[in-house]
């Protein structure tokens, strides 16, 4: 895809996003006479909760009660961890107009640092510090790495951003592959397990699912919050017209780098979860196929809404697990490719685009009848 096409896609998405936004921040107040501002805010929040929100929340909260441990862990928890990493990309791509392929590398930095500062199957390299120390250091280093990637790439646009972040990602892959003193080369780190806290072993499917769910919900609402903050609005402005925002007195570069830093936080937490989920981190975890997979999931789900990455991740994980049951061995990758192709062909906005189309059709039909 060319730079111009990318920009066009981004801008088209932006326009629809702006139109489709149900709750512009200032107009969000519900007029209730005699209510205090705090009450008003509370009521306005309540007014936005729809039946589907409650259903989805109830479903994800009770899912492990009726699903098997396999479905809880491998489908549920993996989708949530992966979704969080992809969320960092859709935040950058959807709101900032910057497609960074290095988000999996940032997640990988967090995973590697967790293995190096925490405990792993390589005691000669790992420091063996408590998990929370290792996890904190890992997140901080990953944010630093993500910010550095952003700082490098914000002066480029479109396809050049993709190229430069891809280059960074591939360079990191080769560093992990060929460095033995820190990254342990081809073999990486095995046995990087989730901790046991207060007697709860987070390696078990249900606790790990809730850990991943907590992080994913946190990431989701944080992104929603940031998108409505002045920073988020400014970021969308910069995506739509950087020069105008510059003329209005916004520090364009600083905003973009800050967006990378925020995205790195999401990717880092997702990276920790994904490393714990796999119980290992190797150069393959940050190889080109994963860099691309993250982009595929983002496109699959859609860039327009922070729920997109999670929907994309669920579909991706389901396909990876069950496509082989639908069709004979060597051909199952065809199913995966075919589904991706169909979604991208028929709904450029991914799966959430399909939802939006169906909804708007229903509304026009209803409107036509009455």
């Amino acid at each position, binding site marked *: 895809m060319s730079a111009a096409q990318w920009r066009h896609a981004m801008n088209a998405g932006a326009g629809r996003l702006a139109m489709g936004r149900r709750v512009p921040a200032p107009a969000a107040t519900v007029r209730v006479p005699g209510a205090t501002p705090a009450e008003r805010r509370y009521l306005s929040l309540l007014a936005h909760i729809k039946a589907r929100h409650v259903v989805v929340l109830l479903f994800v909260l009770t899912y492990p009660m009726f699903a098997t441990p396999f*479905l809880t862990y491998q*489908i549920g928890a993996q989708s949530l961890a992966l979704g969080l990493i992809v969320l960092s990309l859709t935040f950058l791509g959807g709101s900032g107009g910057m497609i960074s392929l290095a988000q999996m590398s940032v997640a990988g930095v967090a995973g590697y640092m967790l293995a190096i500062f925490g405990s792993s199957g390589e005691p000669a390299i790992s420091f063996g510090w408590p998990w929370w120390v290792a996890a904190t250091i890992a997140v901080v280093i990953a944010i630093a790495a993500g910010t550095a990637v952003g700082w490098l790439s914000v002066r480029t646009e479109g396809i050049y951003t993709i190229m430069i972040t891809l280059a960074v990602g591939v360079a990191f892959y080769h560093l992990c592959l060929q460095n033995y003193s820190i990254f342990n080369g081809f073999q990486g780190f095995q046995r990087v397990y989730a901790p046991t806290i207060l007697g709860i072993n987070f390696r078990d499917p249900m606790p790990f699912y809730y850990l991943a769910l907590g992080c994913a919900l946190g990431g989701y609402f944080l992104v929603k919050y940031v998108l409505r903050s002045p920073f988020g609005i400014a970021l969308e402005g910069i995506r739509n017209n950087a020069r105008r925002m510059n003329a209005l007195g916004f520090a364009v570069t600083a905003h973009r780098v800050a967006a990378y830093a925020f995205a790195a936080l999401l990717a880092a937490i997702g990276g920790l979860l994904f490393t714990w989920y796999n119980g290992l981190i190797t150069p393959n975890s940050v190889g080109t196929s994963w860099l691309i997979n993250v982009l595929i999931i983002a496109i699959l789900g859609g860039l327009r809404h922070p729920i997109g990455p999670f929907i994309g991740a669920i579909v991706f994980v389901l396909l990876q697990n069950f496509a*082989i049951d639908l069709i004979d061995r060597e051909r*199952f990758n065809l199913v995966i490719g075919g589904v991706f192709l169909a979604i991208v062909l028929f709904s450029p906005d991914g799966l959430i685009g399909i939802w939006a189309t169906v909804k708007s059709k229903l509304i026009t039909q209803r409107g036509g009848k009455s």
Partner: protein
Amino acid sequence: MNGRKALVGALSIAVAGALSGAAFAQQPPIKIGLLATLEGPFAAGGADGMRGAELALKQKNGMAGGRQIVIIKASSDAKPDVAVNATRKLVEQDKVDIMVGPLSGGEGIAVKEYSKTQPTITFINGSSGAQATTLVDPSPNFFRFNTEGAQWMVGLGKATLAKGYKRAMVIAEDYAFPYSQVQGFMSEYCRLGGKVPVKAWVPLGGKDYSSVIARIPKDVDALVVVLGGADAVNFLNQYEAAGGDKPLVGGSITVSQDILNYKGKRRDSLVGTIAGAPIADAYDAPEFKAFVADYQKNYPVSAGGYPSPSLFALVYYINMKAALDGLDAVNGDLSGGQAKYREALAKMTLKTPVGDVKLDGNRQAIGTTFITEVVKDAQGNLFNKVLSKVDGVDQLLGMKKEDFKIGSRDEPSCP
């Protein structure tokens, strides 16, 4: 959910297939999960591994221990995390009773770790050959009926010295399997007085060997090349272009058919190259000949098979055969968390096309290694003839436990 529907569909097909097969079985069929790499760098090897495993079941008409056997397949791409995901799906979702797989070294270690969380399922290796899988922190329900990378090189050190190569340079890929191979070679070679002044570790899938070739000392007698597939071909081409003339000693997957079909000018210089492996195409024992004939009958070249079964086909065949023979031994009784079955496996003497295999205390095979040499036949084709055969090779390579160290970049060393 999508996944559940898919699963129900797949299961009903599998069950229907099982029922329509022979007569109605008295007991429900036993499900065996089969994992190999159908994607990624070892896709061809993985497909041949699956052929080998299927052949073992075909020879028993799909029955073992008086019960119908259903194979449920899964694929990975030689990455440990993918292998564990695929295994977890087979075990927890498809509810297989026995697992056979995976194919490559790193995968084997990861699946072994996973097996500890599923103590009621029996795991049998596919063809993975990393030493650590059974040597470090072994799992009580993970069995490996094939010998591994280091065992495959036993006898090669002696054969190298017998050729008069007293100093050798090692050129190998930089990961667990070649470490094992180099250790298997060097521990014997160094003990018998050979010297390895330089070891060059190259990245897997590397294209440029010029810096390695420049480092080859003048005073070495031979090059020990532990590279696989395309890496080996690239190295040979570049070595030839650089005017190299040292004789070669090969790893287990170095001097395979694709190398022997190599068309370069130095082709004739390959004659005399010795190597160690668990399989030798020209091995003339009747069991092996029967195995090759059966493979060729079931998987002719026209149907995608190889002219002669690959290492992967043989090793998957051996491990699947072990799973089925174990079921025969206990009459299909998997009760009590498969305790009886595991005991039978641990005690079994497995008849394989390349000789008898027994397990050690870590459930690791003690078996046969071949030393082969490249020779030219009357038509000018190159093939591997069996130079010698070493039986009863154990995982410690005949060393004492306290003397044995797992192979790594720096271990062993004899400059």
